[in-house]
Protein backbone atom coordinates (compact mmCIF):
# COMPACT_ATOMS: atom_id res chain seq x y z
CA UNK A 1 0.00 0.00 0.00
CA UNK A 2 1.21 3.50 -0.79
CA UNK A 3 1.61 5.92 2.12
CA UNK A 4 -1.10 8.45 2.73
CA UNK A 5 -2.01 11.05 5.28
CA UNK A 6 -5.24 10.73 7.20
CA UNK A 7 -7.78 13.06 8.76
CA UNK A 8 -11.14 12.57 10.40
CA UNK A 9 -13.92 15.08 9.74
CA UNK A 10 -17.21 15.63 11.55
CA UNK A 11 -19.35 17.54 9.06
CA UNK A 12 -20.05 17.43 5.31
CA UNK A 13 -18.65 20.98 5.01
CA UNK A 14 -15.41 19.91 6.68
CA UNK A 15 -15.22 16.92 4.31
CA UNK A 16 -15.55 18.96 1.15
CA UNK A 17 -13.21 21.66 2.52
CA UNK A 18 -10.61 18.98 3.26
CA UNK A 19 -10.93 17.76 -0.30
CA UNK A 20 -10.41 21.28 -1.65
CA UNK A 21 -7.14 21.49 0.37
CA UNK A 22 -5.78 18.13 -0.74
CA UNK A 23 -6.28 17.34 -4.44
CA UNK A 24 -6.45 13.61 -5.15
CA UNK A 25 -7.78 12.88 -1.65
CA UNK A 26 -10.47 10.26 -1.21
CA UNK A 27 -13.30 9.92 1.25
CA UNK A 28 -13.30 6.71 3.25
CA UNK A 29 -16.45 5.37 4.92
CA UNK A 30 -16.59 1.66 5.83
CA UNK A 31 -13.34 1.17 3.93
CA UNK A 32 -14.33 -2.34 2.84
CA UNK A 33 -13.88 -1.60 -0.85
CA UNK A 34 -11.40 1.28 -0.86
CA UNK A 35 -8.85 -0.41 1.44
CA UNK A 36 -9.14 -3.65 -0.48
CA UNK A 37 -8.18 -1.73 -3.64
CA UNK A 38 -5.50 0.32 -1.87
CA UNK A 39 -3.77 -2.85 -0.68
CA UNK A 40 -3.44 -3.89 -4.32
CA UNK A 41 -2.41 -0.33 -5.29
CA UNK A 42 -5.33 -0.11 -7.69
CA UNK A 43 -6.29 2.98 -5.72
CA UNK A 44 -3.43 5.15 -4.45
CA UNK A 45 -4.86 8.25 -2.76
CA UNK A 46 -2.26 10.48 -1.09
CA UNK A 47 -4.77 11.53 1.57
CA UNK A 48 -7.81 9.92 3.18
CA UNK A 49 -10.69 11.92 4.58
CA UNK A 50 -12.52 9.73 7.07
CA UNK A 51 -16.20 10.60 6.72
CA UNK A 52 -17.44 7.63 8.75
CA UNK A 53 -17.98 9.73 11.88
CA UNK A 54 -20.12 12.40 10.23
CA UNK A 55 -23.59 12.24 11.78
CA UNK A 56 -25.23 11.14 8.53
CA UNK A 57 -26.20 7.87 10.18
CA UNK A 58 -29.95 8.36 10.60
CA UNK A 59 -32.98 7.11 8.71
CA UNK A 60 -35.71 9.75 8.82
CA UNK A 61 -39.23 10.06 7.48
CA UNK A 62 -39.57 12.68 4.71
CA UNK A 63 -42.51 15.11 4.46
CA UNK A 64 -43.49 13.28 1.23
CA UNK A 65 -44.04 10.04 3.14
CA UNK A 66 -40.76 8.40 2.14
CA UNK A 67 -37.44 7.86 3.90
CA UNK A 68 -34.19 9.76 3.92
CA UNK A 69 -31.29 7.39 4.52
CA UNK A 70 -28.07 9.02 5.72
CA UNK A 71 -25.00 8.25 3.62
CA UNK A 72 -23.24 6.70 6.61
CA UNK A 73 -26.06 4.36 7.64
CA UNK A 74 -24.52 0.89 7.82
CA UNK A 75 -25.94 -1.80 5.56
CA UNK A 76 -26.91 -3.87 8.63
CA UNK A 77 -28.82 -0.96 10.17
CA UNK A 78 -30.59 -0.13 6.93
CA UNK A 79 -31.65 -3.76 6.44
CA UNK A 80 -32.88 -3.96 10.04
CA UNK A 81 -34.91 -0.74 10.18
CA UNK A 82 -38.53 -1.64 10.91
CA UNK A 83 -39.91 0.80 8.29
CA UNK A 84 -37.58 -0.58 5.63
CA UNK A 85 -38.50 -4.17 6.46
CA UNK A 86 -42.21 -3.35 6.33
CA UNK A 87 -42.46 -0.90 3.41
CA UNK A 88 -39.31 -1.45 1.32
CA UNK A 89 -38.75 -5.18 1.77
CA UNK A 90 -36.91 -5.37 -1.54
CA UNK A 91 -34.17 -3.18 -0.05
CA UNK A 92 -33.73 -5.37 3.02
CA UNK A 93 -33.73 -8.49 0.85
CA UNK A 94 -31.07 -7.09 -1.48
CA UNK A 95 -28.89 -5.90 1.39
CA UNK A 96 -28.88 -9.20 3.25
CA UNK A 97 -28.10 -11.05 0.00
CA UNK A 98 -24.83 -9.10 -0.22
CA UNK A 99 -21.40 -9.74 1.29
CA UNK A 100 -21.27 -11.13 4.88
CA UNK A 101 -22.53 -10.09 8.30
CA UNK A 102 -19.12 -8.64 9.18
CA UNK A 103 -18.90 -6.62 5.96
CA UNK A 104 -22.48 -5.33 6.23
CA UNK A 105 -21.66 -4.04 9.71
CA UNK A 106 -19.06 -1.70 8.15
CA UNK A 107 -20.40 -1.05 4.66
CA UNK A 108 -22.27 2.25 4.29
CA UNK A 109 -25.09 3.36 2.00
CA UNK A 110 -22.81 5.70 0.03
CA UNK A 111 -19.86 3.30 -0.10
CA UNK A 112 -22.08 0.49 -1.33
CA UNK A 113 -23.36 2.60 -4.27
CA UNK A 114 -19.76 3.53 -5.15
CA UNK A 115 -18.13 0.11 -4.80
CA UNK A 116 -16.14 -0.79 -7.88
CA UNK A 117 -16.46 -3.74 -10.23
CA UNK A 118 -15.27 -7.26 -9.34
CA UNK A 119 -13.93 -7.87 -12.85
CA UNK A 120 -10.89 -10.10 -12.16
CA UNK A 121 -8.70 -8.18 -14.61
CA UNK A 122 -9.48 -4.92 -12.85
CA UNK A 123 -8.03 -6.56 -9.72
CA UNK A 124 -5.00 -8.05 -11.46
CA UNK A 125 -2.49 -5.25 -11.98
CA UNK A 126 -0.54 -7.40 -14.44
CA UNK A 127 -3.39 -7.27 -16.94
CA UNK A 128 -4.58 -4.52 -19.25
CA UNK A 129 -7.75 -2.82 -18.03
CA UNK A 130 -9.19 0.43 -19.33
CA UNK A 131 -11.03 1.05 -16.09
CA UNK A 132 -7.88 0.75 -13.96
CA UNK A 133 -5.48 2.21 -16.53
CA UNK A 134 -7.27 4.18 -19.26
CA UNK A 135 -6.05 3.25 -22.72
CA UNK A 136 -4.40 -0.04 -21.71
CA UNK A 137 -7.08 -2.26 -23.24
CA UNK A 138 -9.63 -4.69 -21.87
CA UNK A 139 -8.41 -8.17 -20.95
CA UNK A 140 -11.95 -9.36 -20.26
CA UNK A 141 -13.00 -9.05 -23.90
CA UNK A 142 -11.86 -12.40 -25.24
CA UNK A 143 -10.78 -13.52 -21.75
CA UNK A 144 -12.64 -14.98 -18.80
CA UNK A 145 -15.90 -13.05 -18.93
CA UNK A 146 -18.50 -15.36 -17.52
CA UNK A 147 -19.41 -12.65 -14.97
CA UNK A 148 -19.50 -9.76 -17.37
CA UNK A 149 -22.13 -7.46 -18.82
CA UNK A 150 -24.68 -8.39 -21.46
CA UNK A 151 -26.22 -4.91 -21.78
CA UNK A 152 -24.82 -1.37 -21.85
CA UNK A 153 -21.21 -2.45 -22.37
CA UNK A 154 -18.75 -0.85 -24.79
CA UNK A 155 -15.70 -1.81 -26.82
CA UNK A 156 -13.65 -0.43 -23.95
CA UNK A 157 -15.23 -2.22 -20.96
CA UNK A 158 -17.75 -4.97 -20.28
CA UNK A 159 -17.68 -4.85 -16.48
CA UNK A 160 -20.76 -5.12 -14.28
CA UNK A 161 -21.63 -3.12 -11.20
CA UNK A 162 -21.58 -5.58 -8.29
CA UNK A 163 -23.96 -3.94 -5.80
CA UNK A 164 -27.08 -5.78 -4.69
CA UNK A 165 -28.39 -2.78 -2.75
CA UNK A 166 -28.27 -0.57 -5.85
CA UNK A 167 -30.67 -2.94 -7.67
CA UNK A 168 -33.30 -2.40 -4.99
CA UNK A 169 -32.63 1.34 -4.93
CA UNK A 170 -33.24 1.46 -8.69
CA UNK A 171 -36.52 -0.42 -8.46
CA UNK A 172 -37.58 1.87 -5.61
CA UNK A 173 -36.77 5.05 -7.59
CA UNK A 174 -34.23 6.29 -5.04
CA UNK A 175 -32.53 9.67 -5.31
CA UNK A 176 -28.92 10.33 -4.35
CA UNK A 177 -28.34 13.60 -2.48
CA UNK A 178 -24.93 15.21 -2.62
CA UNK A 179 -23.02 18.34 -1.75
CA UNK A 180 -20.10 19.43 -3.93
CA UNK A 181 -16.76 20.97 -3.08
CA UNK A 182 -18.29 24.45 -3.37
CA UNK A 183 -21.03 23.54 -0.88
CA UNK A 184 -23.77 23.26 -3.50
CA UNK A 185 -26.35 20.51 -2.94
CA UNK A 186 -28.05 18.49 -5.67
CA UNK A 187 -30.34 15.47 -5.97
CA UNK A 188 -29.59 12.83 -8.62
CA UNK A 189 -32.19 10.18 -9.54
CA UNK A 190 -30.45 6.82 -9.31
CA UNK A 191 -31.43 6.19 -12.92
CA UNK A 192 -28.99 8.98 -13.90
CA UNK A 193 -26.29 8.22 -11.32
CA UNK A 194 -24.05 5.72 -13.13
CA UNK A 195 -22.22 6.57 -16.37
CA UNK A 196 -22.12 4.19 -19.32
CA UNK A 197 -18.56 2.95 -19.94
CA UNK A 198 -18.35 4.22 -23.57
CA UNK A 199 -14.70 5.21 -24.12
CA UNK A 200 -14.12 6.27 -20.50
CA UNK A 201 -14.91 3.31 -18.24
CA UNK A 202 -12.79 4.78 -15.43
CA UNK A 203 -15.52 7.43 -14.95
CA UNK A 204 -18.29 5.47 -13.25
CA UNK A 205 -20.76 7.99 -11.87
CA UNK A 206 -21.85 11.56 -12.53
CA UNK A 207 -20.29 12.73 -9.25
CA UNK A 208 -17.65 15.44 -9.57
CA UNK A 209 -14.34 14.96 -7.74
CA UNK A 210 -14.86 15.86 -4.10
CA UNK A 211 -18.66 15.65 -4.31
CA UNK A 212 -19.92 14.00 -1.13
CA UNK A 213 -23.00 11.79 -0.94
CA UNK A 214 -25.04 12.93 2.06
CA UNK A 215 -28.16 10.76 1.76
CA UNK A 216 -30.29 8.52 -0.39
CA UNK A 217 -34.02 9.21 -0.35
CA UNK A 218 -36.86 6.85 -1.10
CA UNK A 219 -40.28 8.03 -2.29
CA UNK A 220 -43.52 6.89 -0.60
CA UNK A 221 -43.87 3.13 -0.35
CA UNK A 222 -45.64 1.56 -3.34
CA UNK A 223 -46.91 -1.60 -1.62
CA UNK A 224 -46.92 -4.88 -3.51
CA UNK A 225 -44.92 -8.07 -3.06
CA UNK A 226 -41.17 -7.53 -2.88
CA UNK A 227 -38.80 -10.29 -3.99
CA UNK A 228 -35.05 -10.24 -4.59
CA UNK A 229 -33.63 -13.36 -6.18
CA UNK A 230 -29.86 -13.55 -6.47
CA UNK A 231 -28.27 -16.36 -8.45
CA UNK A 232 -24.69 -17.09 -7.45
CA UNK A 233 -22.06 -19.81 -7.50
CA UNK A 234 -22.61 -20.63 -3.83
CA UNK A 235 -25.53 -20.04 -1.54
CA UNK A 236 -24.05 -17.18 0.49
CA UNK A 237 -21.12 -14.72 0.57
CA UNK A 238 -20.77 -14.58 -3.21
CA UNK A 239 -21.38 -11.89 -5.80
CA UNK A 240 -24.31 -12.23 -8.16
CA UNK A 241 -24.12 -13.94 -11.52
CA UNK A 242 -27.43 -12.23 -12.08
CA UNK A 243 -30.10 -10.97 -9.72
CA UNK A 244 -33.73 -10.07 -10.20
CA UNK A 245 -35.56 -7.62 -7.95
CA UNK A 246 -39.31 -7.22 -8.38
CA UNK A 247 -42.22 -5.38 -6.85
CA UNK A 248 -45.45 -7.00 -8.04
CA UNK A 249 -48.96 -5.64 -7.36
CA UNK A 250 -52.10 -7.78 -7.01
CA UNK A 251 -53.17 -6.99 -10.59
CA UNK A 252 -49.85 -8.31 -11.91
CA UNK A 253 -48.35 -4.90 -12.74
CA UNK A 254 -45.08 -3.88 -11.17
CA UNK A 255 -41.39 -3.14 -11.53
CA UNK A 256 -38.27 -5.14 -12.32
CA UNK A 257 -34.58 -4.32 -11.89
CA UNK A 258 -31.65 -6.58 -12.64
CA UNK A 259 -28.19 -6.94 -11.13
CA UNK A 260 -25.14 -8.55 -12.68
CA UNK A 261 -26.04 -7.70 -16.27
CA UNK A 262 -24.61 -4.22 -16.82
CA UNK A 263 -22.54 -1.31 -15.54
CA UNK A 264 -25.51 -0.18 -13.44
CA UNK A 265 -28.61 -1.75 -11.92
CA UNK A 266 -30.65 -2.44 -15.03
CA UNK A 267 -34.24 -1.26 -15.34
CA UNK A 268 -36.27 -0.37 -18.42
CA UNK A 269 -39.58 1.13 -17.33
CA UNK A 270 -41.06 0.67 -20.81
CA UNK A 271 -40.66 -3.11 -20.55
CA UNK A 272 -42.66 -3.35 -17.33
CA UNK A 273 -46.08 -2.93 -18.97
CA UNK A 274 -45.65 -6.52 -20.16
CA UNK A 275 -45.38 -7.89 -16.60
CA UNK A 276 -48.96 -9.24 -16.41
CA UNK A 277 -48.15 -11.29 -19.53
CA UNK A 278 -45.19 -13.05 -17.94
CA UNK A 279 -41.40 -13.11 -18.04
CA UNK A 280 -40.69 -13.62 -21.75
CA UNK A 281 -42.20 -10.36 -23.10
CA UNK A 282 -40.69 -8.38 -20.23
CA UNK A 283 -37.20 -9.73 -20.85
CA UNK A 284 -37.57 -9.04 -24.59
CA UNK A 285 -37.80 -5.35 -23.75
CA UNK A 286 -35.53 -5.33 -20.73
CA UNK A 287 -32.58 -6.98 -22.44
CA UNK A 288 -33.27 -5.71 -25.98
CA UNK A 289 -29.99 -5.36 -27.86
CA UNK A 290 -28.13 -7.62 -25.43
CA UNK A 291 -24.66 -8.58 -26.59
CA UNK A 292 -23.17 -11.72 -25.09
CA UNK A 293 -19.65 -13.12 -25.09
CA UNK A 294 -18.45 -16.72 -25.54
CA UNK A 295 -18.86 -17.23 -21.79
CA UNK A 296 -21.84 -15.22 -20.59
CA UNK A 297 -24.67 -16.03 -23.01
CA UNK A 298 -26.19 -18.12 -20.21
CA UNK A 299 -27.26 -14.90 -18.52
CA UNK A 300 -30.12 -14.26 -20.96
CA UNK A 301 -32.10 -17.47 -20.29
CA UNK A 302 -31.09 -17.28 -16.64
CA UNK A 303 -32.68 -13.84 -16.29
CA UNK A 304 -35.84 -15.01 -18.02
CA UNK A 305 -36.22 -18.15 -15.94
CA UNK A 306 -35.41 -16.37 -12.71
CA UNK A 307 -37.97 -13.69 -13.48
CA UNK A 308 -40.55 -16.36 -14.36
CA UNK A 309 -39.87 -18.11 -11.05
CA UNK A 310 -40.10 -14.88 -9.11
CA UNK A 311 -43.40 -13.91 -10.77
CA UNK A 312 -44.85 -17.32 -9.94
CA UNK A 313 -43.69 -16.87 -6.34
CA UNK A 314 -45.31 -13.43 -6.19
CA UNK A 315 -48.66 -14.92 -7.20
CA UNK A 316 -48.32 -17.23 -4.18
Amino acid at each position, binding site marked *: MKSFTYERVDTPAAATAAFARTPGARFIAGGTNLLDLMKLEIETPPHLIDVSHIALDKIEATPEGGLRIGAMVRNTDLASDARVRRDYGLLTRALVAGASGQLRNKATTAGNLLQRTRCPYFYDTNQPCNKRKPGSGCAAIGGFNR*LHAVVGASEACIATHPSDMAVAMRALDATVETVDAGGKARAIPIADFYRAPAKTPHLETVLAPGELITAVTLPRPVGGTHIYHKVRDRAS*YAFALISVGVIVQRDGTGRVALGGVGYKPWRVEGAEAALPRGARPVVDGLLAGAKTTHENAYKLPLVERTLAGVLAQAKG
Partner: protein
Amino acid sequence: MQTPEEYELSRRGVLVGGAASVATVALVPAVAAGAATAPAATPTTKVSFKVNGADRELDLDTRVSLLDALREHLHLTGTKKGCDHGQCGACTVIVDGRRINSCLTLAVMHDGENITTIEGLGTPDRMHAMQDAFVEHDGYQCGYCTPGQICSAVAVLDEIRAGVPSHVTADLTAAPTVTAAELRERMSGNICRCGAYSNIIDAITGVAGAKA
Protein backbone atom coordinates in the same frame (compact mmCIF):
# COMPACT_ATOMS: atom_id res chain seq x y z
CA MET B 1 -16.74 -13.66 -3.38
CA GLN B 2 -14.86 -15.04 -6.32
CA THR B 3 -15.33 -17.87 -8.72
CA PRO B 4 -12.46 -20.35 -9.04
CA GLU B 5 -11.24 -18.76 -12.28
CA GLU B 6 -11.36 -15.36 -10.68
CA TYR B 7 -9.38 -16.65 -7.77
CA GLU B 8 -6.71 -18.11 -10.02
CA LEU B 9 -6.43 -14.86 -11.88
CA SER B 10 -6.19 -12.66 -8.86
CA ARG B 11 -4.15 -14.90 -6.61
CA ARG B 12 -0.97 -13.35 -7.88
CA GLY B 13 -2.32 -9.88 -7.22
CA VAL B 14 -3.33 -10.93 -3.72
CA LEU B 15 0.15 -12.32 -3.05
CA VAL B 16 1.68 -9.08 -4.25
CA GLY B 17 -0.62 -7.23 -1.88
CA GLY B 18 0.45 -9.51 0.96
CA ALA B 19 4.13 -8.91 0.26
CA ALA B 20 3.53 -5.16 0.21
CA SER B 21 1.99 -5.20 3.65
CA VAL B 22 4.94 -7.18 5.03
CA ALA B 23 7.27 -4.57 3.56
CA THR B 24 5.24 -1.88 5.32
CA VAL B 25 5.82 -3.46 8.68
CA ALA B 26 9.55 -3.74 7.98
CA LEU B 27 9.76 -0.14 6.85
CA VAL B 28 8.53 1.39 10.07
CA PRO B 29 11.57 0.64 12.27
CA ALA B 30 13.92 1.70 9.45
CA VAL B 31 12.28 5.10 9.29
CA ALA B 32 12.13 5.39 13.05
CA ALA B 33 15.87 4.66 13.22
CA GLY B 34 16.41 7.62 10.90
CA ALA B 35 17.93 5.63 8.03
CA ALA B 36 19.64 8.23 5.85
CA THR B 37 18.20 6.83 2.62
CA ALA B 38 14.63 6.66 3.94
CA PRO B 39 12.15 8.54 1.74
CA ALA B 40 10.00 11.31 3.17
CA ALA B 41 8.90 10.30 6.68
CA THR B 42 6.04 7.83 6.67
CA PRO B 43 2.92 9.58 7.94
CA THR B 44 1.88 8.37 11.36
CA THR B 45 -1.18 9.10 13.47
CA LYS B 46 -1.85 8.61 17.16
CA VAL B 47 -4.75 6.40 18.09
CA SER B 48 -6.11 5.33 21.45
CA PHE B 49 -8.69 2.66 21.98
CA LYS B 50 -9.69 0.08 24.52
CA VAL B 51 -8.66 -3.46 23.71
CA ASN B 52 -10.14 -6.20 25.85
CA GLY B 53 -10.87 -3.64 28.56
CA ALA B 54 -7.40 -2.05 28.67
CA ASP B 55 -6.58 1.44 27.33
CA ARG B 56 -3.98 1.25 24.58
CA GLU B 57 -2.27 4.11 22.79
CA LEU B 58 -0.28 3.70 19.58
CA ASP B 59 1.46 5.96 17.09
CA LEU B 60 0.91 4.13 13.84
CA ASP B 61 1.79 4.31 10.19
CA THR B 62 -1.59 5.33 8.78
CA ARG B 63 -1.56 2.17 6.61
CA VAL B 64 -1.69 -0.26 9.53
CA SER B 65 -4.91 -2.25 9.52
CA LEU B 66 -6.70 -2.89 12.78
CA LEU B 67 -5.65 -6.52 12.33
CA ASP B 68 -1.93 -5.67 12.09
CA ALA B 69 -2.21 -3.24 15.01
CA LEU B 70 -3.61 -6.05 17.16
CA ARG B 71 -1.16 -8.71 16.03
CA GLU B 72 2.07 -6.85 15.30
CA HIS B 73 1.87 -3.89 17.66
CA LEU B 74 -0.15 -5.20 20.60
CA HIS B 75 1.02 -8.82 20.15
CA LEU B 76 -2.51 -10.14 20.43
CA THR B 77 -1.93 -12.94 17.96
CA GLY B 78 -5.17 -14.79 18.64
CA THR B 79 -6.83 -12.89 15.80
CA LYS B 80 -5.67 -14.46 12.54
CA LYS B 81 -4.83 -13.19 9.08
CA GLY B 82 -6.21 -15.46 6.38
CA CYS B 83 -6.75 -13.49 3.18
CA ASP B 84 -6.27 -9.85 4.29
CA HIS B 85 -9.09 -8.95 1.85
CA GLY B 86 -12.39 -9.51 3.64
CA GLN B 87 -12.88 -12.91 2.04
CA CYS B 88 -12.38 -15.38 4.90
CA GLY B 89 -13.41 -13.99 8.31
CA ALA B 90 -10.30 -15.24 10.18
CA CYS B 91 -9.67 -11.66 11.36
CA THR B 92 -13.14 -11.13 12.85
CA VAL B 93 -13.17 -9.02 16.03
CA ILE B 94 -15.94 -7.22 17.87
CA VAL B 95 -15.82 -3.41 17.79
CA ASP B 96 -18.35 -1.47 19.86
CA GLY B 97 -20.46 -4.63 20.02
CA ARG B 98 -20.34 -5.45 16.30
CA ARG B 99 -18.31 -8.04 14.45
CA ILE B 100 -16.15 -6.70 11.65
CA ASN B 101 -13.25 -7.88 9.49
CA SER B 102 -10.23 -6.24 11.14
CA CYS B 103 -8.18 -6.62 7.93
CA LEU B 104 -10.38 -4.22 5.95
CA THR B 105 -10.28 -1.31 8.35
CA LEU B 106 -7.52 1.08 9.39
CA ALA B 107 -6.45 1.09 13.03
CA VAL B 108 -6.48 4.90 13.05
CA MET B 109 -10.19 4.90 12.17
CA HIS B 110 -11.01 3.34 15.55
CA ASP B 111 -9.92 6.10 17.91
CA GLY B 112 -11.96 5.97 21.10
CA GLU B 113 -13.59 2.63 20.29
CA ASN B 114 -13.90 -0.57 22.25
CA ILE B 115 -12.34 -3.66 20.70
CA THR B 116 -12.82 -7.25 21.84
CA THR B 117 -10.61 -10.03 20.47
CA ILE B 118 -10.65 -13.74 21.20
CA GLU B 119 -8.26 -13.06 24.10
CA GLY B 120 -10.84 -10.72 25.63
CA LEU B 121 -13.78 -13.10 25.41
CA GLY B 122 -12.26 -15.54 27.88
CA THR B 123 -9.01 -17.09 29.07
CA PRO B 124 -7.94 -20.75 29.15
CA ASP B 125 -8.98 -20.84 32.82
CA ARG B 126 -12.19 -18.87 32.43
CA MET B 127 -13.52 -19.59 29.00
CA HIS B 128 -16.45 -17.80 27.40
CA ALA B 129 -19.46 -20.10 26.92
CA MET B 130 -18.83 -20.04 23.15
CA GLN B 131 -15.20 -21.07 23.59
CA ASP B 132 -16.33 -23.91 25.87
CA ALA B 133 -18.92 -25.03 23.34
CA PHE B 134 -16.38 -25.11 20.48
CA VAL B 135 -14.19 -27.40 22.61
CA GLU B 136 -17.11 -29.56 23.63
CA HIS B 137 -18.44 -29.94 20.06
CA ASP B 138 -15.04 -30.18 18.38
CA GLY B 139 -15.79 -27.06 16.34
CA TYR B 140 -12.39 -27.02 14.60
CA GLN B 141 -9.53 -29.09 13.30
CA CYS B 142 -6.40 -26.96 12.70
CA GLY B 143 -7.89 -24.08 14.68
CA TYR B 144 -6.78 -21.30 12.34
CA CYS B 145 -10.26 -19.98 11.62
CA THR B 146 -11.46 -20.59 15.18
CA PRO B 147 -10.84 -17.20 16.84
CA GLY B 148 -12.74 -15.54 14.00
CA GLN B 149 -15.49 -18.15 14.13
CA ILE B 150 -15.95 -17.67 17.87
CA CYS B 151 -16.00 -13.86 17.76
CA SER B 152 -18.44 -14.05 14.86
CA ALA B 153 -20.65 -16.60 16.64
CA VAL B 154 -20.90 -14.49 19.79
CA ALA B 155 -21.96 -11.49 17.70
CA VAL B 156 -24.39 -13.57 15.60
CA LEU B 157 -26.43 -14.50 18.66
CA ASP B 158 -26.56 -10.82 19.63
CA GLU B 159 -27.67 -9.90 16.11
CA ILE B 160 -30.50 -12.43 16.19
CA ARG B 161 -31.55 -11.13 19.60
CA ALA B 162 -31.49 -7.56 18.24
CA GLY B 163 -33.77 -8.56 15.34
CA VAL B 164 -31.26 -8.19 12.49
CA PRO B 165 -32.76 -10.08 9.52
CA SER B 166 -30.78 -12.46 7.30
CA HIS B 167 -31.04 -13.81 3.78
CA VAL B 168 -32.97 -16.86 5.04
CA THR B 169 -35.37 -15.02 7.38
CA ALA B 170 -38.78 -15.93 5.94
CA ASP B 171 -40.88 -13.12 7.41
CA LEU B 172 -39.14 -9.77 7.52
CA THR B 173 -41.70 -8.32 9.90
CA ALA B 174 -41.26 -11.08 12.52
CA ALA B 175 -38.33 -11.50 14.91
CA PRO B 176 -35.68 -13.89 13.55
CA THR B 177 -35.14 -17.13 15.47
CA VAL B 178 -32.15 -19.36 16.14
CA THR B 179 -32.34 -22.17 13.59
CA ALA B 180 -29.53 -24.12 11.94
CA ALA B 181 -30.38 -22.46 8.61
CA GLU B 182 -30.15 -18.98 10.19
CA LEU B 183 -26.83 -19.79 11.84
CA ARG B 184 -25.34 -21.23 8.66
CA GLU B 185 -26.32 -18.19 6.64
CA ARG B 186 -25.14 -15.72 9.28
CA MET B 187 -21.81 -17.53 9.70
CA SER B 188 -21.09 -17.62 5.94
CA GLY B 189 -18.49 -14.85 6.30
CA ASN B 190 -16.25 -17.27 8.21
CA ILE B 191 -14.59 -19.83 5.97
CA CYS B 192 -13.17 -23.04 7.46
CA ARG B 193 -10.72 -24.84 5.21
CA CYS B 194 -10.92 -27.88 7.50
CA GLY B 195 -14.67 -28.05 7.02
CA ALA B 196 -15.64 -28.08 10.68
CA TYR B 197 -18.91 -26.35 9.79
CA SER B 198 -21.42 -28.83 11.16
CA ASN B 199 -19.70 -28.96 14.55
CA ILE B 200 -19.46 -25.17 14.60
CA ILE B 201 -23.23 -24.96 14.09
CA ASP B 202 -23.74 -27.51 16.88
CA ALA B 203 -21.57 -25.45 19.21
CA ILE B 204 -23.46 -22.21 18.52
CA THR B 205 -26.81 -23.98 18.79
CA GLY B 206 -25.69 -25.33 22.16
CA VAL B 207 -24.89 -21.87 23.48
CA ALA B 208 -28.11 -20.38 22.09
CA GLY B 209 -30.14 -23.18 23.68
CA ALA B 210 -28.45 -22.74 27.04
CA LYS B 211 -29.32 -19.05 27.03
CA ALA B 212 -32.92 -19.42 25.88
